[in-house]
């Protein structure tokens, strides 16, 4: 009746050149990131492409990507603990590790981009609780603690009865956290491209999609490096779930823009983002919708490609690319469009009122953003080496043994 | 492994005790080093204007930061602009003139705050935002001129 109980064995990843080589590379990128942060702090933000109109740039695109993906990558563990799907349970530990790693990377980028990063202590002790940003600081650091607790109950055999309640708590915390991240933009009444309740659920969908895409890439990569089996059935299953999440992202995006298009007030910003805004429509239609949405969905569902690991991994990479483009359009496109202070009037001033702001990302910004990604990957790599996060095998018959075999055994 | 750690730690602890503690021979040597022999600079802050500071030196040495922190919150949030612990007043009195007779900024090691803060290796954050020397032009106008200007503004306003 039930499934045969196949015991999942977890093992640390091997050391040697396959570990130290990539770690050294990541370490170098982290150093580049730290140097970029020092350079920006020492000379001031004038060395970046950000100014008084575009105040959040490439570092924030990376930071929010990492933070949103961190929340979503834990979904793999939630599906196992909270929703009881057996094939997902062996992947829960790695999902938790990735959640901590990605969030740490994202927070590091965010903090190092601050105008006064030396005042981090102030940010962690002085709160204005009317600010969703303040709540997010609290939610992010709390998330790290909760995932650590979640990993503890997952990895300590005697604590396994607690994995469901802790899993539920982590799930609810994650929904609040990601809604909060979306609301950072959604609650800004001032800007035409924001000020929308849909930003919260859009970010939830984005987190699920991006988190799963990152998870697929990491688990496939590490299984290949370590020579551990990753069942094509499991991978296809993850791929189909990714396709569903990518579809939900497309849905919320469509609703957001269709709603805006219906009101004359928002025609200006919609024309800018979707039609004549230069780089923004290009990123939106080509990278976000086509490459990051429609193509991956086709890859994971089309019968010719659905069972091929290469196609699933490509789909995951494309979803990540699309997610970065989507965040760029939201964060930077939303700032590039001018504030509408005098509706219907043509506005002009020395402070760039009434004009589309231009933004040219600078090298330190990319350095910092990529440094954050490298930090997240380095934490994951080191974690997998020291503790038992990765199952010995994720073969289909191991994670999802067929019920027929159990009945035959029982008989 | 554990015993090796213990030996190293114990050695370091012994050095620390000897340096500061009941064996005066070491601390005397240190005192002689950092005293008048000149190997380590001793802070010699310049005298401020007037007879005395707004509080006695010992109090100020220990508490000037607490006093300034409290004053800044009062000034910024409550608009309290008492002069006693105002940073601007401190700078006005404690300005150190350079070779050209003009007060030096915090870039110059002769600056009053730096003479102790360099020694103690405690970085001073204030002057990223605050002017580190009195504004030689002081207010843009004198108080009487300011009152007359305000009056003219008011008159121009009501008589339109």
């Amino acid at each position: 009746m039930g499934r045969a109980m196949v015991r999942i064995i977890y093992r640390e990843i091997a050391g040697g050149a396959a570990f130290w080589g990539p770690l050294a590379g990541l370490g170098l990128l982290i150093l580049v990131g730290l140097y970029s942060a020092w350079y920006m702090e020492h000379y001031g933000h004038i060395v970046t492409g950000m100014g008084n109109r575009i105040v959040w740039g490439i570092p924030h695109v990376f930071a929010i990507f990492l933070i949103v993906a961190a929340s979503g990558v834990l979904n793999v563990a939630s599906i196992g603990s909270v929703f009881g799907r057996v094939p997902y349970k062996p992947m829960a530990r790695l999902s938790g590790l990735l959640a901590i790693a990605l969030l740490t990377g994202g927070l590091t980028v965010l903090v190092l981009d601050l105008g006064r990063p030396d005042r981090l202590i102030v940010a962690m002790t002085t709160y204005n609780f009317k600010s969703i940003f303040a709540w997010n600081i609290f939610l992010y650091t709390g998330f790290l603690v909760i995932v650590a607790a979640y990993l503890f109950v997952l990895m300590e055999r005697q604590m396994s009865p607690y994995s469901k309640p802790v899993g539920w708590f982590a799930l609810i915390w994650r929904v609040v956290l990601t809604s909060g991240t979306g609301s950072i933009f959604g609650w800004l009444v001032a800007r035409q491209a924001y000020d929308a309740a849909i930003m919260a659920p859009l970010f939830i969908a984005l987190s699920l999609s991006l988190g799963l895409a990152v998870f697929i890439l990491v688990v496939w990569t590490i299984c290949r490096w370590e020579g551990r089996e990753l069942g094509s059935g499991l991978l296809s299953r993850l791929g189909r779930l990714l396709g569903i999440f990518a579809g939900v992202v497309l849905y919320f995006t469509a609703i957001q823009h269709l709603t805006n298009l219906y009101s004359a007030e928002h025609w200006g910003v919609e024309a800018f983002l979707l039609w004549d805004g230069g780089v923004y429509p290009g990123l939106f239609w080509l990278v976000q919708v086509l490459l990051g949405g429609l193509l991956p969905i086709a890859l994971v569902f089309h019968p010719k490609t659905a069972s091929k690991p290469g196609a699933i991994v490509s789909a995951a990479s494309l979803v990540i690319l699309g997610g970065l483009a989507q965040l760029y359009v939201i964060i930077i496109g939303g700032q590039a469009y001018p504030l509408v202070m005098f509706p219907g009037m043509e506005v002009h001033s020395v402070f760039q009122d009434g004009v589309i702001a231009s933004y040219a990302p600078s090298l330190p910004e990319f350095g910092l953003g990529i440094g954050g990604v490298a930090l997240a990957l380095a934490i994951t790599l080191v974690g997998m080496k020291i503790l038992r996060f990765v199952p010995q095998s994720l073969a289909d018959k191991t994670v999802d043994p067929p019920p027929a075999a159990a009945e035959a055994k029982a008989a | 492994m554990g015993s090796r750690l213990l030996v190293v730690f114990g050695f370091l602890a012994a050095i620390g005790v000897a340096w500061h503690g009941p064996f005066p021979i070491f601390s005397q040597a240190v005192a002689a080093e950092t005293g008048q022999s000149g190997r380590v600079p001793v802070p010699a802050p310049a005298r401020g204007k007037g007879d005395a500071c707004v509080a006695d030196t010992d109090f100020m040495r220990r508490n000037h930061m607490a006093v300034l922190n409290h004053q800044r919150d009062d000034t910024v949030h409550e608009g309290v602009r008492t002069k006693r612990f105002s940073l601007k007043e401190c700078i006005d009195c404690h300005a150190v003139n350079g070779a050209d007779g003009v007060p030096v900024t915090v870039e110059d090691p002769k600056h009053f705050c730096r003479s102790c803060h360099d020694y103690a290796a405690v970085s001073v954050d204030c002057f990223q935002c605050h002017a580190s020397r009195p504004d030689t032009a002081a207010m843009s106008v004198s108080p009487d001129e300011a009152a007359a200007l305000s009056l003219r503004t008011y008159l121009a306003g009501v008589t339109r």
Partner: protein
Amino acid sequence: MNKLGDTERPEVADAREQTDVSRRAFLRAASALGGLALAPGVTLYAFGQEAEVRPADQAVTSQHRWGMLIDAGRCGDGCNACVTACADEHGWDADAASPTDAHWIRKVELRDPEGGLKRTLPMMCQHCASPPCVDVCPTGASFKRADGIVLVDKHTCIGCRYCMMACPYNARSFVHEPLADQKPYAPRGKGTVESCTMCVHRVDEGRQPACVEACADTAGGAMLFGDLNDPDSEISKRIASYATVEIRADLDLDTGVRYRNI
């Protein structure tokens, strides 16, 4: 506009006003000088705006609510007096035009595409009663003083720039490079956000903001500063007598700065 509320041609209005000015100015100047002579500690606030300047050791209260009234009809196209005055007062560059340069106040030119009518007006922090910048600041560095002036506490500001995203008027600037020789009464530094302070250091001494003073003294006299809580103040009387608007009034922010003829 004349006393009956009709719009007059500028030359007619000016001519009429000059006679008014000379008559009333004499009376007021006489009493003003007398007042100054009698009570040296009392400034213009004796004249219907505030009984006396708040003592230095007393905390500010919500008894007053400072505001401004700007008449765009009197604002000269090409005149930059307010901007220059603010820049000189606080130590930033009025002529700088790169996206990283600070502007606490700027002149905005409007043009109505229907018919081509042009107007110009100064734009600065609107000192809202419900400021979005105060709501979003994670550390509470962006705050509203009891008397309505919205400020940045630069000791607490971490430079996250979220308030700049939230401000509906693009009123805030970020300091993008190290600064030196700041004005002692206007501290500003790299990595923090700043905006118009309504010359809080002047207001606390009973003076007027630099922009208002410069406009009255050397330009069109388009700006008026006063206590919105005092029904007898000039600004309150004017707001009660003719139509004034807030910019982006639909956001319901109850700004301290109001405009006329925009």
